[in-house]
């Protein structure tokens, strides 16, 4: 087999993201850049979630907690400690990862619905704690002085920079997701997903593998949180820990195909597009949530493998291309 063919799955995924990143540069419309930013954010978050949800089979219902946590840490460092965006992103990601490590050691012992419930509980506990925690602004959060963008050459340049950073994070997330999927580590995760007890009997050290998968899947949302709220200019508890976004992420992963590299990319792009469309179409506008609900129901009941999974199952020849 030629060497590049081996990486076809990765190449296709990266190409899709690159196209999305290049599109606003070609049209040079700021609004396209905003739309692309939102989609990229969805792709990166969904791909991260996929590591624990799709590969490992643990339903993290409150995964957005890492986005909010990283966002808060980074925002605090930028606005209160005067850090620059780069180390703050790193710190946001690392602290999200550290939190996931400690928490994962505890809650990954729970299985199935109990784990899902615990992640909801963790999200709510962190949300309500931060609402009461004055160091991070309590219920009213924190704001960024506009002058901060001057360090980055003004607001326009800062926005451009934030976009490039988002593209970079998305690409890295996908590369990591691919590397995990095709490694021995990833195979262990898949074994855990299929049957954790059987996997342990075969020697898969499930507690460690699960924890590392959870940590990996938490780091990127942490980094993205810092970037998002830096762009947003302010951070408040409820927008930082929106439970419904957690569930939207699950829908993206399910729609595209859980457990595949390309699935979350397709799912996130399609979902964001569809939601935008429903919102701007008058007939659907009022019942957009219901339409999305019916769609979710159709996926869950009839094509639980998602679009990519369905294609892979039906046309085995595509397995090499659609990883």
């Amino acid at each position, binding site marked *: 087999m030629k060497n590049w063919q081996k990486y076809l799955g990765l190449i296709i995924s990266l190409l899709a993201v690159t196209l999305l990143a290049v599109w606003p540069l070609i049209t040079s*419309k*700021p*609004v396209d850049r*905003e*739309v692309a930013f*939102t989609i990229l954010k969805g792709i990166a978050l969904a791909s991260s979630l996929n590591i624990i949800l799709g590969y490992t089979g643990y339903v993290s219902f409150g995964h957005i907690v890492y986005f909010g946590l990283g966002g808060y840490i980074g925002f605090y460092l930028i606005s209160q400690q005067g850090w620059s965006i780069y180390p703050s992103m790193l710190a946001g990601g690392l602290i999200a990862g550290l939190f996931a490590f400690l928490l994962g050691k505890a809650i990954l012992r729970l299985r199935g619905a109990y784990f899902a419930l615990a992640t909801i509980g963790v999200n709510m506990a962190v949300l309500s704690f931060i*609402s009461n925690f004055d160091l991070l602004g*309590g*219920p*009213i*959060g924190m*704001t*960024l*002085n*506009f*002058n901060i*963008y001057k360090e980055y050459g003004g*607001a*326009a340049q800062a*926005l451009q920079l934030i976009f490039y950073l988002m593209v970079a994070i998305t690409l890295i997330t996908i590369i990591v997701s691919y590397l995990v999927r095709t490694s021995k580590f990833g195979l262990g995760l898949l074994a855990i997903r299929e049957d954790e007890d059987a996997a342990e009997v075969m020697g898969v050290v499930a507690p460690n593998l699960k924890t590392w998968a959870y940590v990996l899947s938490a780091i990127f949302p942490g980094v993205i949180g810092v970037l998002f709220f830096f*762009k*947003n*200019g*302010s951070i*408040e508890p*409820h*927008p930082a820990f*929106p439970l419904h*976004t957690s569930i939207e992420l699950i829908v993206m992963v399910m729609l595209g195909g859980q457990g595949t590299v390309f699935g979350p990319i397709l799912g996130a792009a*399609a979902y964001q*597009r*569809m939601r*935008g*469309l429903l*919102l*701007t*179409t008058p007939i659907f*506008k*009022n019942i957009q949530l219901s339409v999305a609900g019916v*769609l979710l129901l*159709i*996926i869950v009941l*009839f*094509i639980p493998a998602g*679009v990519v999974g*369905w294609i892979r199952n039906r046309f085995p020849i595509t397995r090499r291309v659609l990883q």
Partner: protein
Amino acid sequence: MKRTLFTILTLLLAASFLLGACQTGTEPEVAEEAKPDEVTLVIGFTSSITGKYETSSGRQVRGFNLWMDQVNDAGGITLSDGTVVKLEVATYDDESNTDRIQELYTRLATEDNADLLISPYSSGLTAAASIIAEQNGKVMITTGAAADSNYQQGYTLVFQIYTPASRYLTGAVDLLASVGPEVTKVAFVYEDTKFSTGVVEAAKAYAEGMGYEVVLYEGYAADTSDFGPFINKIVDSGAEAILGGGHFQDGSTFARQLHEKGVDTNLFALLVAPPEPDFADLGEAALGVIGPSQWEPLAAYTPESAEVAGVEWFGPSSDDFVTAYTGAYDGEEPSYHSAGGYAAGVVLQNAVLTADSTDPVAIKAALDAMDLMIFFGNIKFDTSEENHGLQIGHSMIYIQWQEGEDGLSKQVVWPKAGATSDAIYPIP
């Protein structure tokens, strides 16, 4: 079965991408080719058609639309060189949610080529939108966004119509000092959002400065529906006066449950809720409740009072506004949010006329220099670097629900100069 469903789903997906690609076609129509002596000014904003700010935001937008229709019906704004400025609007639903607000404002500023922006409703959404206005160099008039903090972020193009939060309840403390000199203990119970926290922080400092003992100072979450714990604490604290609140929903619930429990208090002042006409639905529970208002139909801002104050008068009178508003919206009474929306338009109109152009730089200069009285009150902006755009001309008036001849009615009780009735004190 499965295959059909899958086909449908694939088609839906494909359709969404395709439609997305030609989405520009579905966006708000923007100016057609204008005649040489006619220019079109596009004003962009989002409103909360859905979500928790629906009521207040809806009124604000209705007020603004009324102003725009009036101006366009009258043939637009005419500049000194005969150029006629016609108004166009570009708008989206922000769902009362910061998620998409920046995307939408970017769209307004760049795609729809809005010349000027109006803020969404609420301090939180406005904070997110202001950044986009600044980033794109667009003037933004804010209404329904009172938190002071938004005007302390180094912005230069954001201008506030409302009296800032820090001066929302200080008048109520003055009122208390005037009618109940024997009171020493006050309680602050407030919604823990940006706006109300800003309000009570300032009011608490002010009250303590006047020698009051603050026996309870506690925030409640935005979606609170059970005020039992707070009411128990108020009783326990021995407070003689209660100040606080947040928005309409929580404020009216707070008032209702306080009444239900039969708690005695001398003075009860709440943010936002009492001036809303719907507050009267509470019946007896509304009686005696005081609320700060940005504007009331009864408020006496007239060309005469402008002359007394030594500032220029501009625009229609309060009566004209109320008549036009009730006429335009099936008899709906305007609240101060409606007036705020309308006032944003009037201020814009004055700025365009003063600038005598639609050039954003000239309009910004006109706003910086503005010192004006309109039906809404005095309008003057802080031009210092730290607080640029903060409203310093306008001030609050305080209303109280009192027993009138035909049921409950709102009366202006403070400041004394504009009062329509004496405050009932203590609350019966």
